[in-house]
């Protein structure tokens, strides 16, 4: 297992013994995880293993059924709603399906956070919007387009520009390359690296894409679906550097990183 960086600074975000379920369906059980300042942590695992739920718990978009979420060492549940909302503005979130607001055009989407939370004059907001769009490789020409008029890759880039508009110091990427062609996937991977090089951000990436893992990860955590685990087994089956994940002998990790069905092919026979 990878040891945390040698610093006295508390983890930027930490989950301690966190569990979460929906109705009668448990998704996460007793997860403990730390994200340190400046690192890029990549969460991998099969669909439905709770990667996106973990990220929403870190962002306090969901409340845990049990356990603790801390931001900079302080419990999130001890903060007032106003404090949580204000602190959350330091986080940018690129949603899986981009989650652009259908009723607003590209400009209004990127400007949304600035208009909602600052008293900047419209001229300054326009400057920030154009700058962010330029950073993600989009010209001012797209400003008037609605999300329905954008391709999948453009939506992701507008989503990223919107997430970066308030200059966050933590950026969450929820499956940033899912549904994109290999070239556009690489463009998004490069944008993740570029974002980190332009400003000192902590990044948390949820993905199935091992090229993303190889390209952007400092540290990898692999979650395993609860339905495939015994009650006493940990849901985190791997935590370490990306190269260690590729060299792992554990069939659960080796099969996932190499994209092999392995023993899981039995599910087809039984099914």
């Amino acid at each position, binding site marked *: 297992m990878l040891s945390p960086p040698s610093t006295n600074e508390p983890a930027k975000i930490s989950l301690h013994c966190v569990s979460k379920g929906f109705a009668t369906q448990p998704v996460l059980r007793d997860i403990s995880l730390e994200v340190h300042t400046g690192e890029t942590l990549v969460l991998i695992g099969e669909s439905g293993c709770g990667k996106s739920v973990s990220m*929403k718990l870190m*962002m306090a*978009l969901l409340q845990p059924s049990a356990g603790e979420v801390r931001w900079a060492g302080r419990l999130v549940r001890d903060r007032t709603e106003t404090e949580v*909302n*204000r602190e*959350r*503005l330091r*986080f*940018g*979130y690129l*949603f*899986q*399906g981009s*989650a*652009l*607001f*259908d009723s607003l055009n590209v400009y209004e989407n990127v400007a*949304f*956070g600035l208009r*909602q*939370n600052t008293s900047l004059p419209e001229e300054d907001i326009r400057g920030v919007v154009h700058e962010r769009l330029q950073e993600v490789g989009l010209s001012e020409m797209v400003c008037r387009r609605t999300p329905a008029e954008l391709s999948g890759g453009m939506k992701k880039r507008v989503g990223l520009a*919107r*997430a970066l508009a*308030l200059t966050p110091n933590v950026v969450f990427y929820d499956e940033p390359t899912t549904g994109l062609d290999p070239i556009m996937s690489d463009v998004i991977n490069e944008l993740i690296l570029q974002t980190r090089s332009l400003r000192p951000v902590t990044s948390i990436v949820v993905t199935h894409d091992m090229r993303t893992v190889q390209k952007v990860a400092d540290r990898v955590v692999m979650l395993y679906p609860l339905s495939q685990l015994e009650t006493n087994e940990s849901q985190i089956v791997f935590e370490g550097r990306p190269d260690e994940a590729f060299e792992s002998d554990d069939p659960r990790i080796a099969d996932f990183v190499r994209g092999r069905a392995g023993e899981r092919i039995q599910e087809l026979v039984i099914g």
Partner: protein
Amino acid sequence: MASGPIALSRDTLIHAIGRGTLSAVESVGSLSLFSFRMTRWICNRLPKRSVLLPAMYNVGVLSLPVVMVTGAFIGMVLAVQAYDQFRQIHLESRLGAVINVSLVKELGPVLAATMLAGRVGSRMAAELGTMKVTEQIDALRALGANPIHYLVVPRFLACFLLIPLLTSVTDAVGILGGWFFSTQVLGINSFHYWFHAENFVTIYDVLSGLAKSVLFGASIALISCHRGFHCGAGAEGVGRAATEAFVLSFIAILAIDFFLGIFLNTLYYMIWPASISLL
């Protein structure tokens, strides 16, 4: 084993009743909390004009054609249905009185609200449901906007404030429709038609109809937004939310109409007790 506990089938009628009751209690609780949060936001901070005006345009302006057509036909239908019976007792010149009082007290508010529930309520539930399913509601929170303040309050205010106007339009167009059919097709004298109508409809009738409409508008907005916020996953979830929004709003309209009708009648006789003796 003979001495073992009696084995119950997994899903009996009792289970179903229990589940239904729990679900109903949970829904009422959830709607109450939702209404409380929304009211708190209305008291704390009103929405920006840029958010409120589009909601008002959608609820008010775009609903006008629908409520006008509904009003016109209802006025004419009332004339068609009541004419034969009034003619038998030679009171056809009083047709205006019955058409107008039916419209302003009952049919205008109820039908305007029903059309609003169908046109606006279903749309709100589908729109907010889609936003939930596509994570746009999470995106609002991530960008520092409260979804109830940003999405629900403007829709609620638009329904609450504009439904009395829409009801007034329905009433007015219905009255004109009834007059047109009665005088131009059924041949009733226009002077007598208005003379009797004027003496029969009181300001209390008009105001009680408008008071009902305000509660109808509030319930449509709350139920529809609540359904949208709690819709299930995928296209099926959104479709179900839109249907539930209309059905529940319609039931709410009828229930409010019934109880408020009793209350307003009681109030009327408390204010003007002499009118009981006239009955």
